[in-house]
């Protein structure tokens, strides 16, 4: 069983989970500017063409600077994105179309490994780094990889990162690809969860939460807990499930025991399937 020991959530709301919660509250009450879908994020040298890489770097930096990583040589990172670095891909493609073919920055910026390599060199991270992609269902896909890597002998913690950026092409593609009928838009968002085996959670980890269950539901199939499912009001393409999870986890942390000990969140794929992910305060071990 996976334990979530720390989270980070950066987007148009800013860089803190508190700001994200406030943004969700304001969004529910219509006080959020729906046009604002970009994040203000500090640039990273050499990665100037897109917000994708600065978002990834900033979230890793957060975990390093907040001493959440116990051993830099035993931390694996799984970087996920449904659409990837669209700004870089599109710039290179459009440059080629218009005859502009000399931008060496796009050479290394075109693959997601590069920013992980940059972060690894800054923070001396030597364990496994893997980049995955998916058609929605980000949380479920990242948890799958984390479980696999945490079962390997050299890994103590896994940082899973889901990153998406604002892009008109993504909005257009999503409108053609998505089968769940819910309108959604791309946003600059990066959501990260620091995970470890439940059995390895240490005393200094404050209020860890546990991933009790991940159930894949076919289109039209409803989870028993569907009515109680926690949904983030921000319709962010690609990261919706992860944002649901952060919102539910934070609310679970803020409530006392009387508010219940578990939450189930939806994590939809573009194809219409959906995962129901249940997180709990205390694991029901069998």
């Amino acid at each position, binding site marked *: 069983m996976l334990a979530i020991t720390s989270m980070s959530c950066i987007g148009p709301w800013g860089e803190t989970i508190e700001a994200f919660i406030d943004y969700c509250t304001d969004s529910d009450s219509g006080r959020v500017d729906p046009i604002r879908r970009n994040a203000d994020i500090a640039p990273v040298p050499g990665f100037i063409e897109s917000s994708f890489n600065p978002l990834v770097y900033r979230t890793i930096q957060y975990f390093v600077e907040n001493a959440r990583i116990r051993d830099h040589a035993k931390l694996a990172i799984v970087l996920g994105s449904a659409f990837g670095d669209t700004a870089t891909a599109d710039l290179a493609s459009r440059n080629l179309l218009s005859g502009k073919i000399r931008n060496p920055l796009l050479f290394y910026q075109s693959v997601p490994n590069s*920013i992980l390599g940059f972060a690894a*060199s800054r923070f001396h991270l030597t364990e496994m780094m893997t980049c995955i992609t998916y058609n929605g269902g980000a949380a479920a896909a990242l948890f799958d990889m984390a479980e*696999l890597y945490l079962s390997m002998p050299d890994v103590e913690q896994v940082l899973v990162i889901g990153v998406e950026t604002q892009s008109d092409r993504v909005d257009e593609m999503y409108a053609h690809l998505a089968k769940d009928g819910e309108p959604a838009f791309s946003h600059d968002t990066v959501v990260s969860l620091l995970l470890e085996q439940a059995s390895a959670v240490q005393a200094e980890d404050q209020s860890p939460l546990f991933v009790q269950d991940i159930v894949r539901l076919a289109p039209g199939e409803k989870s028993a807990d569907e009515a109680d499912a926690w949904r983030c009001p921000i319709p962010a393409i690609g990261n919706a499930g992860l944002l649901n999870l952060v919102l539910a986890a934070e609310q679970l942390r803020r409530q006392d025991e009387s508010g219940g000990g578990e939450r189930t969140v939806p994590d939809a794929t573009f194809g219409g399937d959906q995962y129901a992910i249940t997180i709990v305060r205390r694991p029901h071990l069998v």
Partner: protein
Amino acid sequence: MSTRVVVTGIGMMTPSGFGEEAVKRTILAGVHQFRPITRFDAAKFRSGIAAQSHYEGTLLDLGIRCAEEAIRSAGSPDVENASLVLGIQGDYDALSRYWEARTERGEYESRIAEFMPSYHLEALSERLGMKGRGKKIVLNNACIASSNAIGVGYELIKQRRADTVVCGGYSLVTEEMFAKFDSGRAFASDGRIRSFSRNRTGMLLGDGGAVLVLESYDAARRRQAPIYAEMAGWGLSCDAFHVSQPHPEGAGVARAIEKALRTSSIAKEAVDYINAHGTGTAYNDKSETLGIKQAFGEHAYHIPISSTKSMTGHILEGTGAVETAISVIAMNEGILPPTVGYEEPDPLCDLDYIPNRPRPREINTVLNINASFGGNNTAIIMRKLK
């Protein structure tokens, strides 16, 4: 008792064509496949050479064909409940067509979906009839993507999360990727990859793909499947050094090899052949050599090593799977593929690189090394089933 992982199927394409026979005819014979590019107008680039195949289909169709061939060669594996793990980049031609249609006609080009690796995963899964609850994973971490995919496939079986995994990757030379490497001044100036040779000037791209069927030994034995090799272990590491340059002492390569040896529980001396990443760039070949020396010590001087990229070109996301498959075929044929185009010994690369001519040899254990941007390194060990 620990689960053993075996390779029961291989479907592949190299620049010389589909199938194992093409590998035996060219790569095991030391015949390179570099030629002037005809797929697009390369006149505007610094180089116009690649190991371009005669394949004219789409990237997705290449993946389907390799996967179907892998399953066919595996006999009748339980495909319905199998997991699928791919290491690929999307189809950049689809992205080009999208922008062409958007810019010139203001239209939406629906083939843009093929630019998403996850679309390939879904399409292959549907085409192959993977209707069960097997894991579906797609990695897009550049030049280690498909070797990482094979490693993930190994873990799924080893950790008893799957009995059968279809895994691999593929890539074609596209104008977009060619432009990026050209702008990075990565290409060999003389139109040949001369891995580990003092006069090496860079890399070249190539077409190809390989899909393997991995199964637990028990599952394979139950159905009397053909067994090409046992996957003994693997390793994945990060240099923690640079965005695009490898670690100067090959520290990450050494760590990946050491992990692979450890998970395989085999002695260093048991490795009979190394298929190196060997891109033919000054940085890679030197640091990879140092990494091999660090991992193997003095024994490094006794292991035959080659870069089959010197014949196939760099197949990017597909390179790990293709070179793993080539290594398995070489092992079973008892022929070490050479490093062609090798001309001058380099004092910084002083190991046995099997220069220019294939070498017949009894081979029981092979190691395939790959590396990518970001300083990621993989090592995969395959051996004959004993």
